């Protein structure tokens, strides 16, 4: 019995040691080699795998609202216009266009753009009118992306490839920017009903929709009959992977070709891998703190300016974003827009000046008591941490600050229903790429009111000019300077979007957070 017991122990120990030895051999032999999936120059990429953080809410124009959908939908639905990498508007289905007056536009369509289903033949004016009529109306969730006059448009077919759009009031200089989110479906397909269209979207884009499995993947395949530029990818798969660590692991092991929202801390590891690289782009999204200007003490400009001077934006960028994930925000207009002044300095870090301004305000009877700063903890990269840092900076100039971070589902309803009485950290992504849009948006405007008439005139003037009009630069920079100097907000940071890209793919990101792969191709050696 004793001998048998001893031999079982020995056997057990031998098994354990054997497993450890095998693991050790693996450790030596299976060093990571990275992927070796280079596509020879001139050939296509068979399948591009892209990480998608969140599940899209819908693939139809009535229900999608955000970039989670827009950057996928663009591949199979052709809009009238879209943006190039510099943010300039260009025709997609539209070949030429003309603003006849502030309320009337003529748009001519490109010929030869076919829908994916041959039954629906060529994209023509009637399809555009039907799509605009169905999707660009107030009942659609996408309506938020459009200026109100555009939602009340009248569309008229002038000939097979020409339409006239008439708006009830001026202020639609940004029409083309708005219509970058107006996707075109076949008229006859729309008549089959929203359910059908939502389940199986058909468009005229460079890729055909294949499938959407919620919480798993979205798949599109190249459309041979596309009337636009040649596509070099046969198939795109968006894999839904919400966990950041998993996305990075998949990317480094070759399971993904592109990952968005790379954390700054991962950049050295990605750049050290011979098969991957990091692409950077200054984002169209910045972070600012809304100050409710109607509520004391924020009614006083000196207090608002003091709150700006107290924040060390450079330190925020260095410490939180490791110097690579953001740049200091120096004004209201997004730095990616041509209207932003590259020379603007914004508010420097000057705590002594901040204290002086506060003393002056108090000496003039302004009561600066406890300030409550709110920030979301689930909406923007490092939102909670930025709020904590700002609370610290404000305390450092002698203010009594309470910091509260909450989910956006709790905070944002108060913001949108104008019940906010305290400063709130918020982001703004300028998907229209229109300089004046940030000053027009409901909550930004409400909490900044009242604004002088001169400012409103600048906003109105800007809204009547087309993107690219040289007059916009002077108008916008003047407005930006006034707005910044008045410190309606505390200016924080502008994101630098970081993308991990496999070296077999030649692709650069866009500033508007949309991940379009329409010009991606195999990378030359």
């Amino acid at each position, binding site marked *: 019995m004793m001998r048998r*017991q001893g031999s*079982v*122990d020995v056997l*057990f*120990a031998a098994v*354990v040691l054997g497993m450890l030895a095998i693991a050790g051999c*693996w*450790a030596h032999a*299976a060093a*990571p080699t990275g992927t070796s999936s280079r596509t020879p120059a001139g050939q296509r990429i068979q399948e591009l795998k892209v990480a998608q953080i*969140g*599940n899209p*809410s*819908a693939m139809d124009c009535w*229900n999608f*609202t*955000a970039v989670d959908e827009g950057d996928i939908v663009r591949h199979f639905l052709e809009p009238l216009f879209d943006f190039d990498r510099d943010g300039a508007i260009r025709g997609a289905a539209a070949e030429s266009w003309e603003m006849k007056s502030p309320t009337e536009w003529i748009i001519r369509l490109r010929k030869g753009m076919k829908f994916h289903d041959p039954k629906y033949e060529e994209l023509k004016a009637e399809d555009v009118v039907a799509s605009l009529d169905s999707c660009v109306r*107030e*009942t659609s*969730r996408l*309506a*938020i*992306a459009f200026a109100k006059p555009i939602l009340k448009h009248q569309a008229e077919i002038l000939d097979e490839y020409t339409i006239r759009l008439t708006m009830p009031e001026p202020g639609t200089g940004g029409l083309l920017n708005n219509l970058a989110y107006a996707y075109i479906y076949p008229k006859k397909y729309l008549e089959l009903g929203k359910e059908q269209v*939502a389940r199986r979207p058909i468009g005229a884009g460079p890729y055909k929709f294949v499938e959407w*499995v*919620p*919480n*798993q993947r979205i798949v599109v395949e190249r459309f041979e009959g596309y009337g636009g530029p040649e596509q070099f990818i046969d198939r795109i798969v968006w*894999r*839904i*992977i*919400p*966990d950041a*660590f*998993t996305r990075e*692991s*998949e990317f*480094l*092991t070759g*399971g993904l070709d592109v990952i968005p929202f790379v954390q700054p801390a991962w950049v050295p590891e990605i750049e050290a891998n011979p098969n991957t690289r990091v692409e950077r782009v200054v984002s169209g999204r910045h972070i600012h703190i809304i100050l409710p200007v109607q509520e004391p003490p924020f009614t006083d400009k000196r207090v608002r300016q003091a709150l700006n001077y107290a924040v060390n934006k450079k330190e925020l960028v260095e410490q939180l974003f490791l110097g690579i994930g953001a740049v200091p925000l120096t004004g209201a207009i997004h730095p990616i827009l041509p209207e932003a002044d590259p020379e603007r300095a914004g508010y420097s870090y000057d705590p002594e000046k901040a204290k002086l301004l506060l003393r002056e305000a108090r000496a003039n009877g302004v009561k600066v008591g406890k300030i409550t700063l709110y920030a979301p903890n*689930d909406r923007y990269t490092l939102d909670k941490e930025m709020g904590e840092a700002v609370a610290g900076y404000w305390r450092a100039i002698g203010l009594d600050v309470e910091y509260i971070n909450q*989910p*956006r*589902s*709790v905070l*944002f*309803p108060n*913001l*949108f*229903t*104008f019940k906010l009485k305290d400063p709130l950290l*918020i*982001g*703004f992504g300028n998907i229209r790429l229109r300089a004046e849009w940030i000053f027009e*948006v*409901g*909550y930004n405007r409400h909490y900044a009111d009242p604004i002088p008439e001169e400012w409103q005139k600048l906003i109105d003037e800007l809204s009547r000019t087309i993107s690219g009009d040289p007059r916009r630069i002077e108008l916008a920079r003047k407005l930006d300077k006034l707005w910044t100097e008045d410190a309606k907000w505390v200016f924080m940071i502008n994101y630098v979007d970081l993308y991990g890209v496999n070296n077999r793919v030649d692709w650069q990101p866009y500033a508007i957070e949309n991940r379009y792969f329409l010009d991606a191709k195999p990378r030359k050696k």
Partner: protein
Amino acid sequence: MYQFVTQRLLQALATIIVVSIVVFLFVHASGDPAALLLPEQATPEDIANLRAQLGLDRPLYIQYLAFMKDFWRGEALKSFRYNLPALPLVLGALRWTLALVCGAMFISVVLAIPLGTLAALRRGSLVDVMIRVVAVFGQSMPSFWVAMLLMLFFAVRFRVLPVSGLGFKHAILPMATLAFFQVAVLLRLFRSEMLEVIHQDYIRTARSKGLREAIVVYRHAFKNAAIPVITMVGLQFAALVTGAVVTDPIFAWPGVGFLMVNSVFLKDYPVVVGAAIVAAVVVTMINLAVDILYGILDPRIRVS
């Protein structure tokens, strides 16, 4: 038996209704989904319009009754987020969860029972100590950490398994993560049950009759030691079906955990409440099955 099963089914129904009401109220108390479904540029009118569209402007009890009526009709109730019917979404996710959980429990039982037996029979020896140390580790380490370690080791460092995705090979790491804790729990339970049983008089009698040790252990001791463990397996199975909220998102496994976490953050009421109801059904049915099995295995329970 018939009376027992009927009684338990009625209890299960009451449990499911209570769960649905409680979860419904909690989810409504946690925030407004309309604000989340719209971009930040939405005006108060946009939010009000969406709330009306989704029926969120009705009294709570009306919303609840409408929800319960539509949910069980399958196609009628739609997810706020996905605009797809909620029940098929939940059932689709449940399919993946059950696949994972079955695999994890199989691994757990296959490892826990022999190791627990060995530890009990070699009580006090080096083998027993090593096995117990492994059990303590298994119970102490948080599952997200285990998941990340396994992923780093097997998928990133040694590339023997994929990081995430669907398929048999892809399921190994999430199954192993879930099994890690389960093995520890079952192992310790089986060891203590076995220790209690092998010191009983009838085992001493069997040994003194000259029966081989293997017969004594597996024919006589094992059956009695297994009964509480089987109960625990059932309870753990039920817990895993609803509790893989950490493992699912890490491995991008589209199970109920993944769906629930997403839906809670997005205030997708139909899916949250729907998933809670489906989970309550699964758990109560498993508990009922365990109770019936317990009665079958232990005649004393049957008689009482």
